[in-house]
């Protein structure tokens, strides 16, 4: 517990170069506490990766960074301005400085690729010269390797292509912060690596601040400047890849090495043998 608190305090005191800051952020759904007084600073221009087992609150955390979810307690700051208490209309201006890649891409089914990528532009700017917009879309799609797919619909794209189009849409307004929610989930290792390379490329070429939520350790080690691990709503590890690799916390070691814990094994052993639970048609009437 002392170790968790120490990591939390370290996360809080990372310095003044933070573009997004969370102070004592708590999120409850009913009686269930998902995030428990998390304090964290996201350093400008760096790639921060949040890891943790499924259901530990990674997505909930990333959605708080642009206040897609309102916290139950604590504060969220963007460039020093408190944003968790802003009305939706003012928040929309702040959100324009973020790009968000959702886990499934969240492309609009009814719009083509070009419709999806131009969506944020059309929503916020009056378009007088469509040719310029087309050029912009082509350049954004070229960045993700999909120029020429303008007239395709999401239903005609593969999972990896959908994520890349979603990424092109996320960078359409040239945001300062790009948030990725499980960008490699559901992709084969090669497609996953393409996404990793894209994240690095965008970070390198656009100089954006990147926050990635993942449980893919290969991806985390490849792209991260800093890795944070969440467990039971708290930060239990915070540091660079080497720090995480050598972290003494057993839960961190168990997670990064992909090993099942003794507690889980005990549950599996206690639940009976396979022969006991086998379905035998002779025991049932047809």
């Amino acid at each position: 517990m002392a170790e968790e608190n120490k990591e939390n305090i370290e996360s809080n005191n990372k310095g003044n170069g933070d573009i997004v800051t969370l102070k004592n952020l708590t999120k409850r759904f009913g009686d269930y506490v998902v995030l428990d007084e998390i304090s964290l600073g996201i350093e400008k221009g760096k790639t921060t990766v949040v890891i943790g087992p499924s259901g530990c609150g990674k997505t909930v955390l990333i959605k708080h960074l642009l206040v897609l979810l309102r916290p139950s307690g604590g504060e969220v700051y963007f460039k020093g301005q408190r944003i968790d208490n802003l009305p939706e209309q003012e928040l929309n201006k702040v959100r324009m400085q973020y790009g968000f890649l959702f886990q499934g891409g969240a492309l609009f089914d009814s719009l083509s690729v070009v419709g999806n990528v131009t969506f944020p532009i059309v929503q916020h700017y009056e378009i007088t010269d469509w040719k310029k917009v087309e050029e912009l879309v082509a350049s954004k799609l070229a960045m993700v390797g999909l120029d020429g797919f303008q007239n395709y619909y999401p239903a005609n794209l593969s999972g990896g292509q959908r994520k890349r189009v979603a990424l092109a849409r996320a960078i359409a307004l040239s945001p300062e912060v790009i948030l990725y929610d499980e960008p490699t989930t559901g992709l084969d290792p090669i497609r996953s690596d393409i996404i990793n390379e894209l994240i690095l490329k965008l970070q390198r070429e656009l100089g954006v601040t990147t926050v990635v939520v993942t449980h893919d350790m290969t991806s985390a080690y490849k792209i991260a400047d800093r890795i944070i691990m969440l467990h039971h709503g708290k930060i239990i590890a915070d540091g660079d890849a080497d720090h995480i690799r050598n972290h003494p916390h057993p839960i961190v070691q168990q997670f990064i090495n992909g090993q099942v814990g003794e507690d889980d094994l005990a549950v599996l052993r206690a639940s009976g043998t396979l022969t006991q639970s086998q379905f035998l048609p002779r025991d049932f009437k047809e």
Partner: protein
Amino acid sequence: MLEELGSKSIISLGNIGRFGRFVWQVMVASSRSCFRVSTYPLVWAQIHAIGVRSVPVIMITGAFVGMTLAIQAYDQLAGMGLEEHLGALINVSVVKELGPVLAAVMLAGRIGGALTAELGTMNVTEQIDAVRSMGTDPVKYLVVPRVLACLLLTPILIIYADLLGILGGYFVSVVQLEINSSAYWNFSASGVELWDVSVGVVKGIFFGGAIATISCYKGFTCREGAHGVGQACTEAFVSSFISILALNFAVDVVAKGIYNTFWTVKSLV
């Protein structure tokens, strides 16, 4: 027992409050979007999806309402020797009550279900969150065009239902039941006032608003998964149906009050 009742009451009050807030957001956003040119293409797309494709089904509904009324009312009126009054009875019922209500119920099923399923799927696949993440108000982008299209189109669709109801009633009365055609129209003209038609059309505005708002709200708040979307569609239809009946009653009460107060003064003017 008391605890359960209390917790259910709190949940219900919370739901009513959330729906009230949603309605308020829709009203504010709709009134602002009415004067914004960028909204018109979105409304136009919905007009096509909601209105144009609903015309055949609405016309069929109206025609059967008129025909059924003629069949049902004929025996009762003929028993009193008043069969030539059938036109007045059918047409008042069609334009004022049954036409608007049954057309709205049909729209609640056709449009309401589609709106809830579409927005519900967008909700569970994080598309609504995606709209918000790009700094766009999802109520303004997704709900307002649908509500405006329903507000505009439901009265027009009701007029179509009325027309076919009148024609259906005429067909059965004159062709099948052999009532004198000129007597049918004369009694219809004397029985149906402009006021009756207007009340029916005005009801369409309320019904359209209710169907669109309830269906969009259910889509926005639907639970995860296929079961969640299916349940939201069912709830949207049931809530819209009850709202249509309640609004029909409320508009009738108000219209009767207005009629009794002002319409009789018309002859003096």
